[in-house]
């Protein structure tokens, strides 16, 4: 079920009423959320439900096992079971064909041809990369004794399948989300109304920004050989806003929806395109994934401790694994490696934590230096996005060469003024609200109701008037 669908517009209010009708009965509320989440997920394909149920069961019993034993070896085996099952699912459904094909190519290249690879060609279950990481965080944190294993099977299953963030995150930590399932949820007016505003803003980002940019990005990337450098650059910009609008829009809707049910999810995006360097960008982009990799991969590998080579190795590992997490294609690996290359100088010069505050704090506009920094960071991110969007690495390289051709300074063949104006207004709104959790948040100044309501109606009208053709959320495929 898509957030931007009629089905969801019916599903959400019905569930909301039922949920608060049984307020105070935590177990009933959890059971209701569990049923609703399975219904929400099964709407795509009910067969996928068995996977999530199996994954949840394994981690639930691993947790129980970890709670019962202090034996180090047994605890390690239990953790290994959880890792093998979850990563095994991912490997099988997402990466099997990739490895089979590449082994075949490698052997053929080395003059040792083997028989044609057996490809599974199976459909990737929606959101598998998200919920396997979420449930893994439970096993790892329980193993590390950061979290008491739960005996409440309903709460645990509801935690793994919690519908707002099930298919595209934020990837929640068990330490943050699971305890919320044990507590009595009280309806808070301010939380719920701000949640509604966040949903509205998320819908705007998805339907107006992402879906409109998708039309032009798809066209330009599909026919990149026929376009000038300036058009290709514009195509990359459209994709940058498509993926941002799409993914952060989804996160906003997910967080806003959760707030309607009394849950607080972690922030996933913090206006990343206003970053002054790539390190800041990665602190603001897909925060839940970056921190997941930091806590469960980077730090166990030694993090930034140790010698230079160890730092370099760890940076490359984390970025490449993060790229590979997005999809079984060399393009994602190249995207990850490129980001590692961007990040490395900052890391080695110990300048990766230079920009931890909000840009132009207390000022209306950024100064010249900050503007140049934002521009540079956005530009290098843009180049990396070309790899992310392209079908193959060679296509990405050709696309980038196409950008830096003589025609870079020509007038673009594609120049949709309406979309460019919408993007400009979008950036402007986000800039002025950059200190908030989302662009429609009004916390410090209580604007008159007529102003607020007019603004909401304006957003609704803009969504209706300028909404692009409905597209699936990009991150569903991951």
């Amino acid at each position, binding site marked *: 079920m898509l957030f931007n*669908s009629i089905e969801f517009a019916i599903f959400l209010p019905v569930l909301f009423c039922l949920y*608060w009708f049984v307020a105070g009965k935590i177990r009933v509320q959890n059971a209701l959320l569990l049923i609703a989440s399975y219904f929400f997920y099964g709407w795509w394909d009910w067969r996928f439900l068995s996977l999530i149920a199996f994954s949840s069961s394994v981690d639930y019993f691993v947790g129980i096992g970890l709670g019962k034993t202090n034996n180090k070896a047994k605890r390690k085996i239990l953790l290994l079971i959880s890792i093998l099952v979850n990563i095994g699912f991912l490997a099988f459904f997402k990466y099997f064909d990739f490895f089979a094909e590449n082994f075949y190519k490698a052997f053929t290249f080395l003059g040792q041809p083997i028989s044609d690879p057996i490809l599974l060609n199976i459909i990737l279950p929606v959101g598998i990369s998200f919920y396997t990481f979420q449930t893994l965080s439970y096993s790892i944190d329980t193993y590390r004794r950061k979290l008491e294993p739960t005996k409440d099977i309903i709460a645990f299953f509801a935690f793994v399948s919690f519908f707002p963030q099930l298919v595209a995150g934020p990837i929640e930590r068990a330490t943050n989300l699971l305890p919320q399932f044990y507590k009595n949820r009280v*309806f808070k007016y301010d939380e719920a109304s701000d949640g509604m505003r966040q949903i509205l803003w998320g819908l705007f980002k998805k339907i107006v920004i992402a879906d409109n940019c998708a039309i032009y990005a798809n066209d330009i990337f599909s026919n990149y050989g026929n376009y000038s450098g300036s058009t290709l650059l514009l195509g990359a910009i459209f994709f940058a806003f498509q993926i941002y609008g799409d993914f952060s829009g989804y996160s906003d809707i997910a967080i806003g929806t959760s707030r309607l049910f009394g849950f607080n999810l972690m922030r996933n995006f913090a206006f990343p395109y206003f970053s002054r360097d790539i390190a800041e960008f990665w602190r603001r982009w897909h925060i839940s994934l970056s921190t997941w990799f930091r806590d469960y991969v980077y730090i166990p590998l030694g993090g930034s401790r140790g010698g230079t080579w160890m730092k370099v190795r760890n940076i490359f590992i984390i970025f490449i694994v993060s790229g590979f997490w997005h999809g079984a294609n060399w393009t994602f690996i190249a995207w990850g490696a490129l980001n590692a290359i961007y990040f490395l100088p900052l890391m080695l010069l110990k300048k990766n934590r230079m920009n931890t505050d909000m840009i132009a704090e207390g000022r209306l506009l950024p100064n010249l230096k900050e503007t140049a920094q934002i521009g540079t960071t956005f530009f290098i991110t843009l180049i990396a996005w070309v790899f992310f969007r392209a079908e193959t690495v060679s296509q990405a390289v050709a696309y980038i060469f196409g950008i830096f051709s003589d025609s870079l300074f020509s007038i673009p063949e594609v120049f949709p003024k309406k979309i460019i104006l919408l993007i400009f207004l979008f950036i402007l709104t986000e800039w002025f609200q950059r200190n908030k959790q989302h662009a429609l948040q009004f916390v410090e100044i209580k604007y008159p109701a007529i102003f607020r*309501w007019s603004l909401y*109606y304006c957003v609704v009208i803009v969504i209706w008037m300028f909404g692009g*053709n409905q597209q699936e959320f990009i991150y569903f495929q991951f």
Partner: protein
Amino acid sequence: MSQFVRKIILFALPILFFVFFVEYIARQIPNDYSYKNEYLSKNAENIEILVLGSSHSFYGINPDHFTLNAFNASHVSQSLNYDYFIFEKFKNNFSNMKVLVLPISYFTLFSRLEDGIEDWRVKNYSIYYACEYHSSLKYKTEILNTKPMEIGKQVVKYLWSNGKTKNITVSKLGFGLNFSNQEQSDLIATGISAAKRHTKKKLNKLDGNLELINKLITDSSKMDIKVFLFTPPALSSYIENLNTQQLSVMQTNISNIVKKHSNVEYHSFLQDDRFVKGDFKDADHLNGIGAKKLTKIIDRMINNKKEWVAMGLSNKNT
């Protein structure tokens, strides 16, 4: 909680009212689909030749030039499942029907309306033909399928004219008129783009479409209706850019269908040199002149088909 719900309802009510109002008015505006559905409901028993299919017959077959009473029930991008639906819906009333004319274009056997960028047209069958193929609201509403500016303009125009505005672009007998008074498009560029658009990456719709076409022919046979299949004419800029494999699969399957059913006649006009550039609106669509030419040729072919005459067509023709 109650304050929150009250405010949400208050906020949503004007939106819901607006949505229902626009949807209601938009449905009142007569269009090609409502017109054809109404025509078929009232006149099905008088129809002797029924034309189905996509834009290739919508703009390519003008029923005015048939000798028998004909009606064109095709629509732009209409795929075989909707051809079948229309035939089945009215078949009990087709008491005088003698020939069913159906184009088999390069893409016909491999596409469904629901799969392409034209899927917004599905709602026309749900709303105006009462087709129950889909339960999703996406396929059942005007407001979710029409561009806001366009629907807004239509609604205002309709209200302004006191309900007299029509959105009908077909002749009395269902022939698409838009191409008859439009300038010719770039014949090279449209050929390349149409061929690309009509070439499918996967031919996975073939089996389902073959099943539909066989059912359509079998049902026609039971009603003693002949089926005239044809591949419409096109220009070289289109033909040269077609995928030979897809074309060959299409031709093989059509040959099999013709062999299998005795009430079927097939003719390909794809490279017919009787059609010249002046007959085309674009590389794969005829204009009014071309449509007249094609209809007259098909009419002669139907009337000259000896076996069909022997099977009673001549009697019905008089």
